[in-house]
């Protein structure tokens, strides 16, 4: 018996697929923005903060990086709810993803910060730059520029991993396609369509990151070389 593909049955559900795609993109966008903020802050703490703060950040990073995302989101979504704070599922999911990606970002940015040569800091001091100026222009920006490709990969991974959240009730792309499957029983077709959609999404996210990189790092735009 050969399987007969019927994509018409699946493509008829395009409004659901579109809605799911938009939800996935929204989840990725919000957790990227907040994740980078958390990650940059924690990385600064971990490289230059007081010892107790370094310990806390270290525990956070290790705990998150060594437990499954599914368990983290389960606790964040249902755990917060059982403490009496009823957030919409999508908000809970964004928090879970942000907490998760924040830990990975911390480690990546920390590596970038540690790659800044001490001579650069001494030069900044000699030129009379303030502490804030030094952090912004001498440490964070070049550090981010160095690890930018690694960050971009990590955030594409995050976008793909958000599919896990369908099991805690998030109607993102994967959750929507589960609904289509249970309606049509056309799993092969659904997964082919889903694979293509995720591929397109990944290309879009990567393109977004490289455009953002050009805007953030004028040196690279102007000279065309990496650090």
């Amino acid at each position, binding site marked *: 018996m050969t399987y007969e593909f019927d994509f018409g049955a699946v493509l008829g559900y395009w409004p659901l697929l579109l809605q799911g795609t938009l939800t996935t993109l929204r989840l990725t966008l919000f957790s990227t923005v907040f994740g980078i903020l958390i990650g940059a802050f924690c990385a600064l703490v971990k490289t230059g903060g007081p010892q107790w703060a370094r310990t806390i950040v270290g525990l956070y990073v290790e705990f998150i990086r060594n437990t499954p995302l599914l368990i983290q989101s389960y606790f964040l979504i*249902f755990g917060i709810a059982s403490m009496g704070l009823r957030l919409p599922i999508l908000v809970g999911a964004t928090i879970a993803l942000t907490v998760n990606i924040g830990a990975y970002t911390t480690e990546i940015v920390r590596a970038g910060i540690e790659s800044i040569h001490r001579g650069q800091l001494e030069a900044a001091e000699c030129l009379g730059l303030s502490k804030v100026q030094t952090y912004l222009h001498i440490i964070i920006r070049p550090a981010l520029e160095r690890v930018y490709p690694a960050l971009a990969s990590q955030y594409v991974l995050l976008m793909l991993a958000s599919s896990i959240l369908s099991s805690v009730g998030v109607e993102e792309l994967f959750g929507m396609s589960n609904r289509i499957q249970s309606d049509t029983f056309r799993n092969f077709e659904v997964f082919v369509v889903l694979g293509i959609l995720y591929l397109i999404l990944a290309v879009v996210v990567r393109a977004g990151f490289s455009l953002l990189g050009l805007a953030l790092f004028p040196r690279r735009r102007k000279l065309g070389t990496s650090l």
Partner: protein
Amino acid sequence: MGISSHNRKRVSLGIVLVLINMTSGIAHADALANIISNGKIRVSIDPAAQPYSSVDETGKYAGSEVEIAAKLAKDWNVALELIPTSPANRIPYLVTNRSDIVISTLSITDERKKVIDFSKPYSAIQIVVGAPKTDNISKLEDLVGKQVAVTRGSTNDAEITKVAIPGTNIVRFEDDATSITALLSGQASYYVTAPALLTTVNKKNPSTEIEPKIVLKTNVTGVGVKKGETALQDKLNQWINASITDGSLNAIYKRHFSIDLPPEVTDAK
């Protein structure tokens, strides 16, 4: 070659059917008379359909369907023999005379009526919206703006998706366990499921008191009898009428599912 083997199969199937008809016709002209003369009624029951019917570790049967079968045997003053069957076997067992009747969550459908006869409805399988006891909801409008949990791809999902009023947030979970977690943690306010599952949840979490609040759909269930056994069918109908009138069927249903028998059962002709 293909055609001839096909034909042969059809011929032999025909012979088997004729034989079955003959033997059953001779041996069991009247199933009711047989039950009375044997002093025993053989009832097909699914041992894995908690809380309708199940078998515990010691081999003892329990559940609403079991209680109904026991009451029937008691009222008719015959011994009860429970024949364990899987859902797929319920009708074949009856047709091949391995049981006298089926009391096993058998919904009355036109498809099945072609193969067996049914008594009038004695119970129902429902799809309901469950909510904590203290919550006062009674109609679909009350669900607007609330999170309603349901297990993705289930018949419950199909039903609530069909009838929900726009503005109802249906949250779909991968399995019953996660849906229940959502309800118990407060992430979702309501849960669409069968009353039977709510009973089980309450039993496992005594602190929760979840009740069926809104009935979305009712499938009535009937006692299955072999085709043409009109004497047995009539006597079953009389018994069901009597048991609905004296409230005993309702009592069993309510004890198990915390909800009264629906009018589709109590008002059925």
